[in-house]
């Protein structure tokens, strides 16, 4: 089996996780920029993090023969300081030419505030101006439904946004249609206690189809499982789905979206 992990915060994982992912068939991992667990205090803090995402972490992954790609942004949780956000946004283009950068992400909303929306709009502008793919984080728990609608409305109002170049992540049963029906890609995140489980993810594929959907573990420093994607293949096979179905959802779908960035090239032959 082969799969792509399109959303993993590998800077907070161990080398054991890299080994386990590669042993399970991982062909590439993509790492969106993320909150550190505390607010970074300065532009230089972000510059160091972007160097980690574009220089050090791909080298660490390469020791396990795993291609590593990254996305850049300021996390929605860090949007309340508008001056810092503006300074970080002005610095991001320095890194857009790095060879593992796929686009702008994970941007989005956290608690659905006006400042978060302002900073989201600035990120979308930046992505459009630089012709970058966009990866959007949707809020947690009770904030997800409203936040997803605010995000979809903002994206739709921006003339430069092409829905097929945007993935809206962490969808659940109450938001997946809002996303797919507008032409965006949808990401289903597999978490032990929140977001989706493997059986619910396969349910969503049965109800909504398997086009424009990817699955991810979003593994980070919280409760999460870096092998959640290959474990979901087991749920598919138990229900009788064949290897081609599994391959389409776990490998070909993320490949189709990510290959819109010319830098995303996998040596493993497709099919």
């Amino acid at each position, binding site marked *: 089996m082969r799969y792509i992990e399109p959303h993993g915060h590998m800077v907070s994982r161990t080398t054991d996780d890299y080994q386990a992912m590669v042993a399970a068939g991982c062909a590439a991992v993509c790492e969106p920029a993320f909150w550190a667990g505390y607010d970074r205090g300065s532009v230089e803090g972000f510059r160091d993090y972007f160097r980690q995402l574009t220089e050090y972490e791909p080298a660490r992954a390469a020791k396990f023969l795993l291609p590593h790609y990254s996305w850049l942004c300021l996390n929605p949780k860090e949007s309340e300081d508008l001056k810092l956000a503006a300074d970080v946004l002005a610095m991001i283009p320095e890194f857009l030419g790095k060879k593992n950068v796929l686009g702008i992400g994970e941007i989005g909303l956290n608690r659905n*505030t006006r400042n*978060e929306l302002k900073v989201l709009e600035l990120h979308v502008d930046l992505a459009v101006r630089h012709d970058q793919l966009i990866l959007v984080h949707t809020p947690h728990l*009770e904030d997800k439904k*409203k936040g997803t609608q*605010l995000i979809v409305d903002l994206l739709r109002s921006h003339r430069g946004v092409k829905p097929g170049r945007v993935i809206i992540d962490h969808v659940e*049963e109450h938001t997946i249609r809002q996303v797919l029906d507008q032409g965006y890609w949808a990401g289903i995140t597999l978490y032990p206690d929140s977001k989706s489980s493997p059986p619910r993810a396969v349910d969503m594929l049965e109800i909504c189809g398997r086009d424009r959907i990817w699955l991810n573990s979003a593994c980070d420093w919280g409760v999460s499982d870096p092998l959640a994607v290959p474990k979901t293949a087991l749920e598919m096979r138990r*229900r009788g789905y064949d290897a081609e179905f599994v391959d389409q959802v776990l490998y070909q779908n993320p490949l189709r979206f990510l290959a819109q960035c010319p830098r995303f090239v996998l040596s493993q032959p497709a099919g």
Partner: protein
Amino acid sequence: MSNSRDSRSPVSPLPPGSGAAVVDTGFIPVRAKLLEVAAFLDRVERHEVADDFRCEALREAAQVLVDGRPERARRILEKLSDPTSEPDAISSGKAALGAWRPVQK
């Protein structure tokens, strides 16, 4: 555009025999989760916190399980969601709690 239907109708034909597998592999884990819900509702009464807004939201949401209508997961998520549509003026600085409370922010 998506082809999504309601939760009873798959977009494409399901694999032959999938129904038996769904019950055979799914029943025991789901039975365990249902017991966790029941024991949690007993526990919050014993500890006299059953009136916490999250416990109230859980009891309310649980009614969806037995109303005989489809789209149970979607409807439970919607019951637990913030129903407003305007962005908030300021951030509470706190994490989401899993159920919506009008005065929390």
